[in-house]
């Protein structure tokens, strides 16, 4: 049991960092942010799932997916489909030509619920599909590409193209998907109004719990022999292959796990924000998520979470005060991180922490981060 907990928490150092993160997200932010900023934070936390998945996939595995938005979006759409069906009961849709189906279907002359919407009438089935559909798609993509040894930039470009295809498809098939507007006007989850203040808090905490669990899952993978092999593969793929490992299996697996973690983020996004739209599936959000992970540190699970929160708070703050400067800042930040701090915030922290006592500095660093964010708001 001891070994297991060690692996989930990543040793003493990892446990402290995780505890501080949990503290910040569970206690400090909720006490100190008003409900408006907190629900914004909740949204960023859902992006952090994708960053965590990218640390696993890209930082450790060296596989740069420019299509994580696909999985985030699919998870989000699955959740949204369930909520939309619940919001489209025959009573509240009685002005429609066909009551009982989502409003956008009715506008598109669809008179019966399409078959692939049927499973989303049930919550347990929906929850399963949130995990299953993105994972399955990742498996298919991964199987096709990794078994044929497509890697590096080719993988990035192809995932990017798939993200584009999926977003055009969703926009084009608006009768089934809600088109460019997405699936909107989501109200209740099994009768529980997700728009109320209390609901926002509850969802926020669920969200943070799931994030911490995802980090622990990722940590377990990274600290196991699997994680060591991932690093080994990133450096010397041939050597791993000629040590008797089927490299593609490992890549497929880690791609699937990354997809699943992203999908959880997407589903939580839908619950917190109240809608899902194709603008989270395409190329731009997918790359922005990579930016977040890079800023936080592509090798550090915790760092990537902080990076995501910082980048997004920065984005909000800058676009509030200096909308003109935002793209300069974002682009500049990205160039700077890639060129000068390839390990991101976490790398900078590691560099300076060696001279100090770890625990103290960790605490100080986190306090500073919190303070910095506080100052920004």
């Amino acid at each position, binding site marked *: 049991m001891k070994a297991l907990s060690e692996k989930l928490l990543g040793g003493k150092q990892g446990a402290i960092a995780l505890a501080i993160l949990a503290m910040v997200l569970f206690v400090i932010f909720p006490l100190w942010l008003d409900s408006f900023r907190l629900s914004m934070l909740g949204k960023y936390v859902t992006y952090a799932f994708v960053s965590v998945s990218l640390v696993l996939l890209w930082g450790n595995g060296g596989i740069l997916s420019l299509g994580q938005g696909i999985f985030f979006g699919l998870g989000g759409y699955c959740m949204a489909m369930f909520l939309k069906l619940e919001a489209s009961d025959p009573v509240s849709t009685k002005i429609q030509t066909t009551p009982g189906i989502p409003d956008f279907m009715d506008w598109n002359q669809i008179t019966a619920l399409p078959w692939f919407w049927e499973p989303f009438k049930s919550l347990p089935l929906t929850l399963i599909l949130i995990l299953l559909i993105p994972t399955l798609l990742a498996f298919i993509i991964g199987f096709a590409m990794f078994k044929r040894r497509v890697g590096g930039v080719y993988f990035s470009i192809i995932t990017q193209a798939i993200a584009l295809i999926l977003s055009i498809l969703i926009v084009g098939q608006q009768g089934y998907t809600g088109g460019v507007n997405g699936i909107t006007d989501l109200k209740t989850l099994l009768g529980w109004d997700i728009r109320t203040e209390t609901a926002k808090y509850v969802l926020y905490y669920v969200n943070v719990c799931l994030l911490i669990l995802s980090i622990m899952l990722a940590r*377990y993978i990274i600290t196991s022999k699997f994680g060591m092999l991932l690093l080994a593969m990133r450096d010397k793929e041939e*050597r791993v292959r000629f040590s*008797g490992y089927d490299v593609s299996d490992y890549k497929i697996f880690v791609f699937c796990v990354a997809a699943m973690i992203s999908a959880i983020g997407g589903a939580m996004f839908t619950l917190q924000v109240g809608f899902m739209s194709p603008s989270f599936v395409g190329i731009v959000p997918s790359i922005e998520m990579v930016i977040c992970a890079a800023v936080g540190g592509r090798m550090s699970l915790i760092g990537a979470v902080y990076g995501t929160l910082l980048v997004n708070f920065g984005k909000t703050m800058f676009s509030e005060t200096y909308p003109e400067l935002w793209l300069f800042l974002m682009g500049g930040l990205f160039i700077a991180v890639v060129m000068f701090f390839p390990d991101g915030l976490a790398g900078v922290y590691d560099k300076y922490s060696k001279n100090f006592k770890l625990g103290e500095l960790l605490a100080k660093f986190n306090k500073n981060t919190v303070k910095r964010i506080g100052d920004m708001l």
Partner: protein
Amino acid sequence: MSNTDFVLAIEDLTVSFDGFKAVDGLNMYIDHNELHVVIGPNGAGKTTVLDLICGKTKSSSGSIKFKNRELTKMPEHQIVRAGVGRKFQTPSIYENLTVYQNLEVSYPAGRSVWGSLTFKRTDEVIERVNKIAAEVLLTDLLQTEAALLSHGQKQWLEIGMLLMQDPELLMLDEPVAGMSAKERDQTADLLKRICQNRSMLVIEHDMEFVKQIAHKVTVLHQGKILAAGTMDKIQANEKVIEVYLGH
């Protein structure tokens, strides 16, 4: 004669790249516990032969049998699991991992995805890592990051990683290239030691070294065998002297 007692039997092996035959109708056999050295001028197809055996390159025709199992259609990792280990020309180790981790990753358990997730560092694993580390003279450096090793030590580490898998056929591509004279002698000793209970196929340029270790030598030239036999016989072969040794 497809069913043999040989560890490795290569027959009529040919591979061509855009019409150029890098290996052309090769026949070669390796016995149990034999240390077989392949020599030949640059471009003779030596490395390509190793690539073909371990599955890195797919043959155009011919067969490679390892303990009577056909290798040409098998994926790389299956070939390794069957008992063929291969060291690359330039040391191919995981620079970001420690020597210990390099060796442990090569331990032949937990090779499936699930296996690697549930792999436990048992006493048996630790014992084996220590034993191999001693064999390749790296006991004192177990916790060192592999990137910090000297060139010779990197070569040994890679050999150690292969020994972790305990292969029945061990293939080494220029194991002493870039080594000092002392390291070279140590390596020769190492190879003689580890040749117990396994066969080895070594590519080497260094004739002194070859003399030290070889049981049998094959000379490749333009993808074909020019001569084969003991070192003494090879050194006396006029064709060989002409294309290779004479220069």
